[in-house]
């Protein structure tokens, strides 16, 4: 069987996947702490009849774009943005996860939690508890959480040797099997959240070129179809 149609199919499949990744990036344009994904493809060589090799396209992986997103002011005293590399640790029912989505609130016991109810971890993984009636919470650039009644705790900022090994979970959380390393150079900024780091211009241009590439592959498939048709017609012609 002729393989060119299958090569074209692998091309179309790759475009379709990339479109899903781009659509997810654009859909999360207003998601705080969201990190963009970039699809990578690789060539897959297969042996064909006659000793030649033909190349399919296959998915290689998607890269997390771990660049800093812009910080935007919210005025909420429990909103925290990280200025620099690093992650905040939260306790989920499945263990520790990491996030840069910095909207937190208090639960009835005064613990600092995410909008999904997961506890923000202080030093040693303990929950941070703001005492009842302590008034306004101040979060200092080094991560120290304090009220007028004194220090509540410290929010550790951690990083990992290879952030590409992190897997994105839903709700702005990331998981990894690597051991967290404390990082002290990253500032914890109170009253701000980190916006998603999607750059609309890049997303839109990639979207358009993806559509054009799909048309190009389609044109190739069409041309191949015409070639086959012509070949069958000419070769089948009785002299």
């Amino acid at each position, binding site marked *: 069987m002729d393989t060119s149609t299958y090569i074209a199919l692998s091309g179309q499949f790759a475009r379709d996947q990339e479109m899903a990744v781009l659509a997810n990036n*654009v859909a999360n344009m207003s998601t705080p702490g969201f990190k963009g994904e970039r699809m990578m493809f690789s060539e897959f060589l297969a042996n064909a009849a006659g000793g030649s090799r033909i190349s399919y396209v296959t998915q290689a992986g998607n890269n997390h774009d771990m660049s800093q997103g812009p910080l935007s002011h919210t*005025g909420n005293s429990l909103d925290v943005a990280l200025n620099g590399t690093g992650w905040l640790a939260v306790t989920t029912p499945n263990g520790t996860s990491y996030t840069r989505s910095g909207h937190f*609130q208090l639960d009835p016991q005064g613990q600092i939690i995410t909008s999904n109810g997961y506890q923000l971890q202080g030093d040693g993984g303990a929950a941070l508890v703001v005492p009842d009636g302590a008034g306004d919470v101040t979060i200092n650039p080094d991560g120290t959480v304090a009220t007028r009644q004194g220090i509540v705790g410290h929010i550790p900022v951690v990083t990992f040797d290879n952030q590409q090994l992190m897997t*994105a979970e839903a709700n702005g959380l990331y998981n990894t099997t690597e051991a967290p390393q404390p990082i002290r150079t990253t500032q914890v900024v109170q009253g701000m959240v980190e916006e998603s780091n999607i750059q609309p211009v890049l997303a839109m241009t990639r979207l358009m070129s993806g559509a054009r590439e799909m*048309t190009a592959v389609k044109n190739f498939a069409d041309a191949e179809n015409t070639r086959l048709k012509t070949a069958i017609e000419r070769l089948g012609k009785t002299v």
Partner: protein
Amino acid sequence: MRSLSIAATGMLAQQLNVEVISNNIANLNTTSFKEQRAEFQDLLYQNERNVGVNSSDTGTLVPVGVQIGTGVKAAAVYRVTQQGNLINTNNTLDLAIQGHGFFQIEMPDGSTAYTRAGSFQLSSTGEMVTADGYIVQPGITIPQNTTAVTVNANGQVLAQVAGQIQPQTVGQLQLVNFPNEAGMALQGGNLLTETPASGAPVTGNPGTTAFGTIQQGYLETSNVNIVSEITNLITAQRAYEMNSKVIQTSDQMMSTLSQIQ
């Protein structure tokens, strides 16, 4: 094509964002209104190739996996509990809270609601009531023939009755705090109620630890910042447009596919 439904979640999210922003702008002049913000989160990811798994017998690892996200959802619409500005109204029974705390209001069904909108009035019997006629708790009755009412910073209500030299203390206003103010439920009419998320109310006198003080003759304005609302509106509109562009492009790609001969 997954991209169609993914972009649809993006459009729905931006629509909610615009709704929240428009409610903020509509309440620009609502006493003690607290700005709301929509918070979004990414949806589940489909793992098509796992990161960090062995890619050969010699222990080499897959450096990056293939994870395809499925869109966005609204996680919360939360209130920014920042203090609004105080404006002078010169009205004796306009009370603003400077700092933390809520006034307690007795609802007609006997339950308690909470508000920071202190534009109070007197009922026909001299009781302090809200603009809707609901009684402020603890109940304060201003005697007849009162010429002036003073509410001091600590919430003591003093009435100067005609013919008396000393002002008479007629009551003490109390405030309540919640462990998680942002978890209270909005009821409309500037009222909020307790929820399991907000925690139980803690009552105290104004001016004591963790409670704000009372400013007579002032009202707290809404804390909506019109400049940031308008910029958020523009961002939301553009994001909406871009998501619709993704849908258009996906549609175009599908039509390309359907035309393959």
